[in-house]
């Protein structure tokens, strides 16, 4: 009885203490925000990896030193709740000054974020004294800031400034590697990669320990698909009907499939599936049902020598592994490979990667000019170098030197585009492939079983995707009509709007040319373009 009472008092006291602490914090923040001598700029993001907040803290500290009277505050929000949290903050007009950009709908961008387009044509003042001193801010970035979510192609406006770009790499357990392979170099060729995998299997058998070559999950099937697309590289010329040398992901690929110019049963696709299956045998059985965290645990527990992950996971692996971690680029079969070489053009290029981890300026910022200035500071050459060095992420700004540890993330620029893939065209095709992937990856499966399961339904899924794409194109074009009408009307008094009208017409006409082309090809094949 007595104990019950004590525990009740203890519980209530705990609640009261928490309440007082929270209240003090809110009051303190409120008082601080009313202090005329103290300007506070807050920025929020979901990159909780240890090194990223540390890098941003370092930049904030440096900025505060340069600008006494300005306080920079970092708000870290878990990924899973960020979308909901940020929407609530934006709608409630309590959003921080700078906020990590996500795929916001156009109407939300317009209502809650400030377009930054006009600022990026001027040089970044924090680049004074370096080679970008007289270069427009946007041209200091690898990708020229033309990609989502920084740039919105419907609004033709830039809303975010990026910090990094990401690549996929093989992370490996250096200690285990040395134990198994001795002083052997890390794999430079596909043959050496295979030899490493075989050596790990042999080691596991010999020592009776559970060690597999590659920890994988349904999120890391990219390793198999990357190898797959090396086998279809030469088919790119068959789908380049517009003579623009573009690689995978084109609508022309769908058309080529429907016209039987591409075929899953063709030697190139079968070879791609064979290499996918081959590498799958070095992963955990049933990996296509596991999630990303499972693969990470497997690797961090030392039960796998390698895992394939994005460079965004680097800080987790580097800081949380009880062993030394190294990184290398997945070696693909060279054109001289006796079996797979005949379909390969060469290494797959990573030039053209899009930048990411962008911050946008919220409309409710009390000090937009200072928030923008901080954004300029962190994305200057010096700022981005500091970020890259501490976060161990690739820089988004050109000419930033790479520290040793991320040298392995340096994008491959001497290479050809990857070939047409099987699984990049949207929900119908993806569902078909993912539902049957076990037939390809599991020990009891085979290329033949997978092909037999996919082939009868593949074109049907492609047609469904093509129709969906046509509807999307029509919707985009239709939306631009009202925009064009309004911008034309506004351009009668403000000629600067005429540029927007021209850009909208250009985008609309390109979009419609694609729309009518796909309809034309479907009709020629006797397929109704409508459902």
């Amino acid at each position, binding site marked *: 009885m007595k104990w019950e009472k004590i525990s009740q008092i203890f519980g209530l006291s705990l609640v009261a203490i928490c309440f007082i602490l929270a209240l003090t914090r809110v009051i303190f923040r409120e008082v601080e925000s009313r202090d005329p001598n103290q300007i506070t700029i807050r920025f929020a993001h979901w990159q909780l990896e240890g090194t990223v907040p540390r890098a941003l803290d370092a930049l904030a500290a440096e900025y505060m030193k340069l600008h006494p009277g300005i306080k920079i505050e970092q708000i870290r929000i878990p990924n899973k709740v960020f979308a909901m949290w940020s929407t609530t903050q934006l709608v409630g007009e309590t959003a921080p000054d700078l906020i990590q950009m996500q795929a916001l709908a*156009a*109407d939300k961008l*317009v*209502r809650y974020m400030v377009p930054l387009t006009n600022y990026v044509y001027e040089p970044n003042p924090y680049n004074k004294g370096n080679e970008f001193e007289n270069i427009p801010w946007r041209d200091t970035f*690898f*990708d*020229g800031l*033309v990609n989502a979510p920084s740039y919105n192609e*419907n*609004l033709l406006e830039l809303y975010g400034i990026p910090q990094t770009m990401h690549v996929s790499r093989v992370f490996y357990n250096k200690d285990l590697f040395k134990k198994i392979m001795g002083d052997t170099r890390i794999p430079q060729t596909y043959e050496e990669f295979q030899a490493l995998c075989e050596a790990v299997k042999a080691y596991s058998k010999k020592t009776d320990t559970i060690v597999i070559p590659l920890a994988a999950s349904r999120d890391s099937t990219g390793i198999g698909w990357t190898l797959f697309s090396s086998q279809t590289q030469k088919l790119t010329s068959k789908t380049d*009907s*517009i*003579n*623009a*040398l*573009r*690689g995978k992901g084109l609508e022309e690929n769908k058309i080529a499939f429907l016209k039987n110019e591409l075929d899953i049963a063709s030697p190139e696709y079968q070879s791609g599936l064979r290499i996918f299956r081959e590498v799958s045998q070095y992963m955990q059985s049933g990996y296509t049902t596991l999630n990303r965290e499972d693969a990470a645990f497997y690797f961090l527990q030392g039960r796998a020598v390698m895992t394939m992950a994005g460079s965004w996971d680097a800080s987790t692996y580097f800081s949380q592994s009880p062993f030394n971690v190294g990184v290398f680029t997945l070696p693909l079969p060279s054109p001289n490979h006796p079996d797979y070489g005949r379909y390969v053009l*060469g290494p797959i*290029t*990573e*030039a*053209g990667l899009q930048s990411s981890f962008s911050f946008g300026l919220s409309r409710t910022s009390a000090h937009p000019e200072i928030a923008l200035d901080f954004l300029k500071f962190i994305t200057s050459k010096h700022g981005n170098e500091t970020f890259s060095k501490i976060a161990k992420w690739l820089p988004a700004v050109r000419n930033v030197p790479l520290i040793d540890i991320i040298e392995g993330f340096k994008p491959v*620029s*001497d*290479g*050809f*585009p990857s070939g047409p893939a099987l699984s990049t065209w949207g929900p119908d095709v993806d569902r078909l492939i993912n539902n049957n992937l076990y037939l390809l990856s599991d020990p009891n499966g085979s290329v033949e079983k997978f092909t037999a399961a996919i082939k009868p339904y593949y074109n049907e899924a492609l047609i469904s995707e093509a129709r969906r794409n046509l509807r999307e194109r*029509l919707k985009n*074009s*239709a*939306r631009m*009509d*009202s*925009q064009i*009408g*309004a*911008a*034309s*009307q*506004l351009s*009668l*008094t403000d000629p600067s709007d005429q*540029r*927007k*009208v*021209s*850009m909208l*017409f*250009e*985008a609309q*006409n*390109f979009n*419609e*040319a694609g729309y*009518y*082309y796909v*309809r*034309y090809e479907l*009709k*020629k094949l006797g397929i109704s373009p409508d459902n």
Partner: protein
Amino acid sequence: MRILNHSQTSSGGLLASLLRAAGLLFLWVNLCLNAYAQDQVPSPQLKPAWDDAAKLLFEDTCIKFEKAIKDYATDPLVLREAQYGLALGLINKQPKTEGNLNRANELFDTVQKTSLDDNMGISSLYYQGRIYEVHRAKISEDKALAIYRDLFTKYPTHPLAQMAYVKYGAISLYQVLPPDEKIKQVLSYEEQGGFLTSPDAQRGFHSLLSQVYTLQKLNPDKTLDHLFALEKVGVSSVDARKDMVVRLAEVSRLQNKKTLAIFYYEKFLNDYSWDSRRYSIQKRLETLKGTEL
């Protein structure tokens, strides 16, 4: 005109004079309205509504124009502009309904009743074509084609009528026809496009034809001609500009125009440092220069 003719055929007298005077007054009012409409700038009261429409905020656009229609019911110029603006908002207001599209169509009709020949009248007709082409759940390309034909035949100098010619081409050139008819159709469309003076329409026209000639495998030389013309007019999207330069190089190479191909490959490498095609293009260039030597 009909009123004047009618008055002239009437015998003299008071009635005839009154009719003549009324006719002259009607003509004068119409001329004034038209003259104003030709140079019509947005009414300052309606600017916030236009700003919303330019930013895709169609719900807000409609609310503001609806209010303006009530507030400026006695000001014919503002009223007409608000009706035009509301129609443009309604075609994209969500959820998209046939009711909204029908109302937009009626509002465009109303705008045209004041004058069909001024900027707003011609624009209204153009957007009626667009309603049939892309907005309705059941699109009607034939109706859109008829409106576009009407536009570029009657108002060939107006930028939207010229754009109607581009839209007309996009629909008709991608119709499935026997090969003989197809080439005749494309050549005829190409020849008749000489009247285009608006850069936006010229860009659309040359881009469309460069694609039609390539994708329908009709004539590579013509593809090149239209790509040159497109380069001259200019393209603002970076991605589209990159594609244009690569296509100029690739089509030149395929046509054995090595010097041209080399020029455009080098231009691409100089202008675009971050693109997945750079290495392929470097290799193309090395091969071409090797064969040139």
